[in-house]
């Protein structure tokens, strides 16, 4: 049983096999991401009721919250696949980790920007040293560190392993950073601007939010596969099958 699964994993994770399978998967992910994204945005921006407290500007959460969720989700995916790459020496896992980092960094950036755009009318300032904002900013730095290390080591295998280890160290640190930042904030400034205690959400707001969250996940799946395919082609550029592929074009 175990042997069969292992064999299956190895077959799937061979770059060539991955290249052809992911090519078939990308359109599905992409189309459903677009479909759900358009539907979620329409529901969120036009159909969902206006918030009685925040007016129309609350609608940015349909972008902001999924982006913030993705920023953390992708870091965990990155660390887990880097761990798989380190432990079982599966090159494909390393490529997924490397392909994920810029996407995660962009989601973090979007979460920060939309958050500060929302903060201006709500809090009266673009940036507040709120605990969540701060730990999101630190997360962005962690992504930058990973990408910097990945790109500054020339040997690809070493770069993968080294930055993979960094991602794992980072994932151990994230809870510590998160809670210490929260603790720091509560001590420094009382509840002047902290999150408004959200009343439980109206269903008409919750559904578009969840749809957008799923759309973001599918979008990530599509993009990470595209990026990983590029990595495969680049890293295997001297292999026979890549050459044949290129000649066919």
């Amino acid at each position, binding site marked *: 049983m175990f042997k069969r699964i292992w064999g299956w994993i190895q077959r799937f994770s061979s770059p060539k096999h991955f290249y052809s399978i992911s090519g078939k998967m990308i359109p599905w992910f992409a189309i459903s991401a677009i479909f759900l994204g358009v539907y979620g945005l329409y529901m969120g921006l036009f159909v969902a009721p206006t918030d009685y407290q925040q007016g129309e500007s609350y609608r940015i959460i349909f972008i902001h919250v999924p982006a913030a969720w993705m920023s953390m989700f992708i870091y965990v995916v990155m660390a887990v696949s880097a761990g798989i790459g380190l432990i079982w020496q599966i090159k494909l896992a390393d490529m997924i980790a490397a392909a994920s980092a810029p996407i995660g960094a962009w989601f973090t950036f979007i979460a920060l920007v939309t958050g500060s755009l929302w903060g201006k009318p709500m809090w009266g300032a673009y940036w507040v040293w709120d605990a969540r904002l701060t730990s999101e900013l630190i997360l962005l730095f962690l992504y930058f560190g990973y990408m910097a*290390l990945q790109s500054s080591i020339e040997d690809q295998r070493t770069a993968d392993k080294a930055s993979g*280890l960094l991602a794992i160290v*980072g994932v151990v640190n994230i809870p510590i*950073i998160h809670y210490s*930042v929260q603790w720091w904030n509560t001590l420094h400034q009382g509840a002047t601007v902290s999150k408004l205690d959200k009343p439980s959400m109206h269903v008409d707001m919750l559904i578009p939010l969840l749809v957008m969250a799923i759309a973001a996940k599918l979008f990530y799946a599509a993009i990470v596969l595209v990026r990983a395919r590029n990595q495969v082609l680049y890293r295997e550029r001297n292999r026979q099958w890549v050459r044949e592929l290129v000649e066919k074009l």
Partner: protein
Amino acid sequence: MLKAFYHLLARDLRLAFRSRHELANPLIFFVLVVSLFPLAVTPSADLLMVMAPGVIWVSALLSVLLSLDRLFKQDYEDGSLDQLMLSPNPLVILVLAKVFAHWLLTGLPLVLIAPLLGMFMYVPDEAISTLIFSLLLGTPVLSLVGAIGVSLTVAVNRGGVLLSLIILPLYIPILIFGANAVDVASDGMSVRGQLLFLAAVLALAISLAPLATAVALRITASR
């Protein structure tokens, strides 16, 4: 195993004392950076007192960061790091010895000179002991976590900025709790919680960081 630990520790200390001028550099840097703040901001006691914990802690952090290079760089360049990795002793123990030596040479001097800087920055007398204790608990973590970063970047040319980029975010919890402990102590409140947290992180770092460092060395330093 213990013998190897002592030998490596003694070797690193001996090597460091052979070039004494280098030994003082992080310390001078620490004092220098702290004394820049009154010059740049204001010499007024009220304001400096408020800023003191943060300024002293950030300076200590930068000073450790700049000195991290000597943890593995020279050994990497002259090949003794390869010898260490070939030795039958567990690499984790050897890493621990090297990190301990590094702390004795950079962290401990910072702790010892901190009261003087506290005076410079008008830290109240009753907070000075907290400053010392928080640094005593925090600086070893800086060395331990920094060791992971150095071992990842040791083979990279001009890895200095890269090192700070990957290590500084990981230092944030220590900075928060260390500076906050001094801050709270200045107000005359109990700092048990902060110091216990620092101690907990130290325990975690001692048990996990050398493992990560050993793995990182095997990845990057094996040519």
